[in-house]
């Protein structure tokens, strides 16, 4: 497992804070997930119920078992996990799949780094907490996906499925929407980033 230096934006004072990016979701990260994410998710869940928020407005990853995902991906070259730790807390996780290919007509059949699962810690999410601790976790993990894509010679091409409420975010990141994916009852939007879009996304 290797560690890389990244930065998160602390919302409270707008400063950049150094953080560690791990290229694996290790047992220590899963322990942090169980200790700190799950209880916070349960609290959020109880709050949603109390406020009678309709279920389709709840965070859609409440049921995700990261331990199951991470453990089943271990040892597989085609799946890569990432974890961000900052100030000794788990700030985000992502799982990539490297065995998928593009659906965009101009690059159809070419390999992409597909984001299977991506989530920021509950305290970093605007829909779960009034003042987030760190901003940018999602976008940073997307950049990581692009970096992996480049490293594998996929030229920065990535893909992911989005819930409609997050569509605007991915569009703002410069991704191309391929519309509602019929394979998922049309309820998820499929996005891809081309090599050119990736270069732009990574430009300083």
């Amino acid at each position, binding site marked *: 497992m290797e560690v890389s230096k990244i930065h998160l934006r602390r919302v409270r004072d707008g400063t950049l804070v150094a953080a560690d990016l791990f290229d694996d979701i290790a047992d220590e990260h899963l322990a942090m997930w169980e200790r700190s994410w799950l209880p916070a998710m349960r609290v959020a869940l109880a709050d949603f119920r109390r406020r009678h928020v309709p279920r389709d407005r709840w965070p859609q990853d409440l049921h995700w078992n990261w331990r199951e995902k991470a453990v089943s991906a271990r040892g597989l070259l085609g799946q890569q996990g990432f974890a961000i730790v900052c100030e000794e807390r788990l700030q985000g996780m992502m799982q990539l799949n490297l065995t998928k290919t593009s659906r965009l007509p101009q690059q159809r059949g070419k390999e992409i780094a597909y984001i299977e699962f991506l989530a920021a810690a509950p305290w970093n999410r605007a829909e779960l907490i009034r003042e987030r601790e760190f901003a940018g976790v999602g976008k940073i993990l997307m950049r990581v996906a692009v970096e992996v894509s480049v490293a594998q010679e996929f030229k920065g091409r990535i893909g992911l499925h989005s819930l409609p409420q997050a569509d605007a975010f991915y569009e703002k990141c410069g991704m191309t929407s391929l519309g509602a994916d019929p394979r998922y009852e049309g309820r998820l939007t499929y996005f891809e980033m081309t090599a050119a879009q990736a*270069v*732009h996304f990574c430009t300083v």
Partner: protein
Amino acid sequence: MKDRMPELPTPPSRRTMTLNLTDAEMDALEKLSALKDLSKTAVIRQALRLYQMIDKRSRDGQKLYFEHESTREKAELMLL
């Protein structure tokens, strides 16, 4: 500010191997390399990823199918 390709990340440690391929195999490798816009090494690495994943899923009791996009016809890929 000029757009440029992101810097390549540092690769993990590497071990080297020599591949002995037939003409037909090398041709196929070169064709895939061109089609996929990947180096021959990258093609082999991708093949390894897929092979490993298929193997694991087969062991888990799953079957691999091809499904025709329009006709929805399924053809099983037998891997034992």
